[in-house]
């Protein structure tokens, strides 16, 4: 066993951290508030190969895995620039296409993804939130094309991506009655694809959309993998999504704790720095412990995924990491805000604006309740409630 971080990961961390620090939280916030995008940061990360670290070298990637993408994702967030699209574009979409795309598809899309092209992921629907068996968006074969009809909701970043990976129903399993799913890469500007913005209380440059597929024609060669095997294929993308999602939480946690510790060392109102008082220092120390435990599980989950561990073992670790990280990130941010007193809510301290995003990560990409269901049923063997 090896628990100290490798020299390569440390170097990657420093390079990504230094690059992102040039931008910083003020840049992120200004873009988020003005409805702008973090294009310069994203593109610079892409140009330097950091968004493609996990992709195979033959397709322009760095030849690493989710472990390296996790380092990138956390480091960017730890500099105050949590980028949600890393977990959609670089984690899920890139992973699914690498594993299940045919050679033409990999040549067509992976080099772009490695450089920083954006591909978003459309699975959730108004009536099938966490229940993928109920996906109702259909894809019907019609000669050389498939016709897509249905509605997707809470799809991040559609306005800044060229393409999206869409989960559709192409049939029904006669025995279980569950949907048979198929995955398609669809252009975001395809005719008869409409979108409406869903206003949210999350301060982030990525915006959320509802999508309406009104008989959208997709060429048959855009089907990724096997028709009807979409659910199994999606599962391979979900672990990277959970792991990188966890990294956004731990990155926010590190960012918040660093600010809080600096403040508590300097701020003095009773003659000594407020960090002297255990009422201030202990919540920060507690949050730090939770944060490091979550980071440990996240690193383990990434390692298991990269080493093709048993799917249940890797899935369990990814779920637990996601749960622990979301909780730890929120606790760190909460403790940091409390440490700052009234200043914790002041815009200039750059903490409270992250609350919406940190809180979202308790709900997405998989909700806390679905993680608990997974652990209760899969790990503890308890009866299923649904």
């Amino acid at each position, binding site marked *: 066993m090896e628990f100290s971080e490798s*020299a*390569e990961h*440390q*170097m*990657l961390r*420093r*390079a*990504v951290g*230094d*690059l992102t620090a040039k931008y910083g939280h003020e840049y992120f916030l200004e873009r988020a508030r003005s409805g702008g995008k973090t294009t310069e940061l994203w593109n610079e990360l892409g140009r*330097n*190969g*950091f968004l493609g*670290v996990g992709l195979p*070298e033959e397709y322009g990637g*760095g*030849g*690493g895995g989710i472990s*390296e993408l996790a380092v990138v994702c956390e480091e960017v967030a730890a500099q105050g620039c949590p980028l949600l699209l890393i977990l959609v574009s670089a984690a899920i979409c890139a992973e699914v296409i690498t594993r299940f795309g045919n050679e033409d598809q990999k040549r067509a899309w992976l080099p772009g993804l490695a450089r920083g092209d954006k591909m978003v992921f459309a699975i959730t629907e108004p009536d099938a939130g966490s229940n993928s068996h109920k996906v109702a968006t259909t894809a019907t074969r019609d000669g050389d094309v498939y016709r897509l009809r249905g509605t997707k909701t809470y799809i991040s970043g559609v306005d800044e991506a060229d393409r999206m990976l869409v989960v559709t129903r192409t049939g029904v399993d006669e025995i279980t009655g569950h949907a048979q799913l198929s995955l398609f890469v669809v252009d975001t500007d395809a005719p008869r694809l409409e979108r409406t913005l869903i206003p949210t209380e999350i301060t982030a440059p990525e915006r959320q959309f509802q999508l309406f597929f009104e008989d959208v024609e997709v060429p048959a060669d855009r089907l990724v993998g096997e028709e009807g095997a979409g659910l199994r294929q999606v599962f391979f993308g979900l672990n990277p999504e959970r792991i990188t999602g966890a990294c956004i939480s731990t990155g926010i946690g590190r960012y918040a704790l660093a600010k809080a510790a600096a403040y508590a060392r300097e701020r003095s109102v009773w003659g000594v720095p407020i960090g002297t008082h255990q009422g201030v220092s202990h919540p920060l120390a507690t949050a730090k412990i939770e944060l490091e435990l979550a980071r440990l599980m996240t690193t383990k989950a990434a390692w298991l995924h990269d080493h093709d561990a048993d799917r249940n073992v890797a899935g369990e670790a990814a779920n637990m990491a996601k749960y622990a990280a979301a909780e730890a990130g929120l606790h760190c941010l909460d403790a940091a805000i409390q440490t700052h007193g009234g200043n914790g809510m002041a815009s200039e301290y750059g903490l409270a604006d992250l609350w919406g995003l940190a809180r979202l990560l308790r709900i997405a990409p998989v909700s806390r309740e679905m993680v608990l269901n997974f652990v209760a049923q899969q790990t503890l063997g308890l009866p299923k409630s649904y």
Partner: protein
Amino acid sequence: MNVVVCVKQIPDPATPGELDASTKTLRRSGSIILDDSDAYGVEMGLQLADKAGGGEVILVSMAPNNENKGLRTALAMGAAKALLISDEALAGSDALSTAKVLAKAIERADADLILTATESTDGYTGTIPAQVAELLGLPMVTFAKHIEVDGDRVKVQRQTEAGYDEVESPLPAVVSVTAGVVEPRYPSFKGIMAAKGKPVDELKVADLGLDAGQVGWAGARQEIADVSAAEERKAGEIVEDEGDGAERIVAFLEQLKVI
């Protein structure tokens, strides 16, 4: 064209530095990184070798305990190999002893050009580049903000207070570069992985043909007499604007002889 870049590996400036009370020197434990000011020389060397259409960047560094983390960063940026001089006999080396060691190591590298920073971020003496040039018997150009190689000559824009001088020198030469010379690249992940396999030759004082008595505490001609904390910056004066704010600022600037 082969470019030698002298690089220093220093304690991470982001972590609080510590002095050893008995030797009055910086403690070099903890996180060690490539001195940021050396990243400019590495980048410049890479670009010049690239432009010349051949040759490589060779790093030369002196550090305790065979420390190579900073070298790995420069190798990940694209340098081809490194010479690392690490020897217990080097503890306590002053600037001149360090220059002697670096010069001896550079002699082994067959360099067309030797690049250094203007000064290190932890020591700030700024004397080593000139000492190295003198020991090697090579011409030296300082404070380069732009470098071009033309055949066997180097053309340098040398930063001055008023602007810059255009200076030419035959090669080989030693050139110290400022932070304005180029924008250093970030090590890419591929570069980081490739750096693992690049050679770092570890050398001892004896390998360089130097005597242990010439370096370290034994050879030091410089002594640290005393160390004291830098004076804390005094709080600034707050000028309340009662209609005369502009005049009072002008008076203040005149008093400083700025205007």
